[in-house]
């Protein structure tokens, strides 16, 4: 076996009565079933215990921020869809919002409500994938299929709304592209009913009370609040450590200024708390969707704006709460047809940085459990 020895701290490699044991370097990924894409982890192992971990990223780098600089503002949402490909609607909100902030335009109220509705649906879709694949990471095969079954309903809704299941290209600076087709709201309400009455309790029964699931997640991958703040974690990962950080509450944008959100936090800071926060956010998202369906105002869905948009010179930093944390766009306009710079603050990228510290001293099985609980999307990490 090709093993290489490295210098490691003596407290992690046990001294087995003078018996010298070599560490093994294991290259996990980029082609590995559960690194959630093309993440590569260079693990130094002592038996099954991880001594150190070096994440290697960049396998999905597509130069997205450079692409923005060569595309008109109206074409931006189509590209940012591919950044965090599990919550494209929320990415589009960020891009459109940043452009609007430079332009000094406020989208119509109806457009803001539609954005909130699709954002919350997308959040549910993304959390369903997170929880389903987390079950898969822990070796349970059923949750992922149940979650994808429910997510399918959301994708169908998006397809009839925007014409695309996955990369929707639905938001535009100044509003949204289409209004709801006939019967869409009823379908959405039916889906919400079914999801809340049948699917969520089913998932809770399958996963939450499972002793093995609890044993695999409780106390594993503990992040204390100071650590979370130091690593600038956001989203469910931070909220599971008791940090009350949620862009929808702290810096409300769009319709969140009118519809308050109950922030979901847990104090435990372990993998189970992160799972629990995601579940609770799905309940909360169902509630928000219902509020929007009740209060949906009439009126136009978009401001009138030219297709060849030329915002004035200026810059804006616009944050939205994506399913993974604070997703922000820092956009600079030089007055031309194309953005001068559009920088994405990707929550997956920031949250991933804590991984080496969390993995040290854990078993191989926990590597996957912890990585899955952080819930990264490699498209978002590499952009």
């Amino acid at each position, binding site marked *: 076996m090709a093993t290489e020895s490295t210098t490691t701290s003596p407290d992690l490699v046990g001294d087995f009565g003078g018996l010298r044991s070599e560490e093994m370097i294991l290259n996990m990924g980029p082609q590995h079933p559960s690194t959630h894409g093309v993440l590569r982890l260079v693990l130094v192992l002592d038996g099954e215990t991880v001594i150190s971990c070096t994440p290697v990223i960049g396998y999905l780098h597509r130069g997205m921020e450079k692409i923005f600089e060569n595309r008109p503002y109206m074409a931006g949402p189509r590209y940012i869809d591919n950044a965090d490909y599990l919550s494209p609607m929320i990415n589009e909100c960020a891009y459109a919002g940043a452009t609007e902030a430079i332009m000094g335009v406020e989208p119509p109220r109806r457009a803001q409500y539609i954005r909130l509705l699709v954002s919350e649906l997308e959040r549910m879709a993304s959390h369903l994938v997170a929880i389903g694949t987390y079950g898969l990471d822990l070796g349970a095969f059923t949750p992922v299929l*149940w979650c994808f079954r429910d997510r399918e309903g959301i994708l169908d809704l998006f397809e009839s709304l925007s014409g695309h299941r996955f990369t929707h290209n639905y938001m535009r600076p100044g509003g949204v592209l289409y209004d709801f087709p006939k019967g869409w709201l009823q379908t959405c309400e039916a889906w919400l009913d079914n999801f809340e009455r049948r699917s969520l309790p089913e998932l809770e029964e399958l996963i939450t009370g499972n002793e093995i699931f609890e044993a695999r997640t409780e106390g594993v991958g503990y992040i204390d609040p100071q650590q979370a703040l130091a690593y600038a974690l956001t989203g469910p990962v931070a909220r599971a450590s008791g940090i009350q950080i949620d862009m929808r509450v702290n810096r409300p944008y769009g319709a969140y200024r009118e519809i308050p959100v109950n922030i979901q936090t847990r104090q435990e800071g372990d993998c189970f708390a992160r799972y629990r926060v995601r579940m609770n956010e799905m309940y909360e998202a169902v509630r928000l969707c219902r509020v929007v369906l009740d209060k949906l105002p009439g009126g136009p869905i978009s401001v009138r704006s030219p297709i060849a948009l030329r915002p004035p010179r200026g810059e804006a930093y616009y944050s939205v709460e994506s399913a993974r944390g604070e997703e922000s766009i820092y956009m600079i306009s030089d007055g031309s047809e194309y953005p001068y710079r559009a920088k994405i603050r990707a929550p997956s990228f920031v949250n991933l940085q804590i991984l080496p510290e969390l993995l040290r001293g854990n*078993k*191989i099985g*926990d590597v996957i459990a912890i990585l899955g609980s952080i819930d990264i999307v490699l498209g978002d990490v590499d952009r």
Partner: protein
Amino acid sequence: MDPVLFNVIHVVVTFLFALLFLMTAAALLSYLDRKVQAYMQDRYGPYHYGPQGILQAFLDVGKLLLKEDVKASATDNLVFRLAPVVFFAPVVTAFVVLPFSPYLTAGALGTGLIFYVALSSIDVIGVFMAGWGSNNKYALIGGLRSAAQMISYELPLVLALVGVVMLTSVLTAGCTGNTPDLTTCGVGSISFSQIVAAQMRPESPWLWFFLLQPLGLLVYYICGLAETNRSPFDLPEAESELVAGYLTEYSGLRWAMFFLGEYGNMAIVSAVATAIFLGGWSGPGAAIGFWNGLLGGFWGGLVFNIIAAFWFIVKMSFFLFIFLWVRATVPRLRADQLMRFAWLFLIPLTLVNILLTGALLLLPLDTPIRIAIAAVVNWLLLIGVVFSLRGITGVKATGRLPRWLRTQRRTPQPAPLPGVSPERAPAGAGAGNRR
């Protein structure tokens, strides 16, 4: 008929039956595995080839047989090639002792139980060879894991069967009554035929041993899951952690042998559980006297054996179904939790069971009363284990350490930070700064 010829025919028939049954069962099981799981997961599973996709399994086997023989260049050639055979051969051999029916038992060995246990522990060598010979780090970790796992679970598996053997010592002929003949029944039988016979004595034909040893069945079945590397003990081939574990470098025919061996192992574990705990081939209609009287020697025996094998396979299918059911329900344990569960929970539990059963069977009482007391105590133990485990011992069934064994406490949590006060973004437009 010439008795020698009769014996030859018997061996040939039963061995062919075992081999065919193994092949068909393994292929069908792989199909059912996918189909049963599919229905539990709201999907259809294999659908296209044959009615309800039933030909899928056989086509899969055919595809595997025709695949190119791929072997990485740096593998340990001999070990790599030998490993599937070492894994598969004991599975075929173990089928020989399984009592499908009185006739369909190729080798009614007097030491059937020990024979089975011995063969099932040879498997681990095959898995370890596969892990070592592949020259792949995932495979190596998988092989090491499986070696640790299978050796650990071998112990409670054997110990769980001891209770039954002790019961047979009381129940077989000559051992009943107030004055048992100690020359013939000091030790119980470890022959499958004898154990099945002890469960269908004329005076108590329905006294299957799971009624007397439910705890034994539970522990045996859990260890069976671990022995066959099935969920939740499928660590050696944990796909989310180790890609495919010791199977990572295998493909084609060699992979198929591991695959068939694994499903064959499941069938064997279920068959042994059936023979030992569910009364083997006993069931409605499986009465040789009745059929012999009705149809005569040959035809009566044939009909009786078919019915007996039918009941055996039905009971076996029940256990096999639980294999699939468990797999669709639970996640996987971690390596250290797995070992802890075996050594700190299952082995002490089986030892207590042996001690209690043995002591109670020695009480100076009538045999039925002794057995009844032992059964009641066993049931109480089972209920206690299942329901109050966490409260009494602090050992979760999943192997969390009790407080006094825990060395590493979780760091105490600081008080929750005060929430960032929600500062409202300025309503309306133009949040950006003009340059």
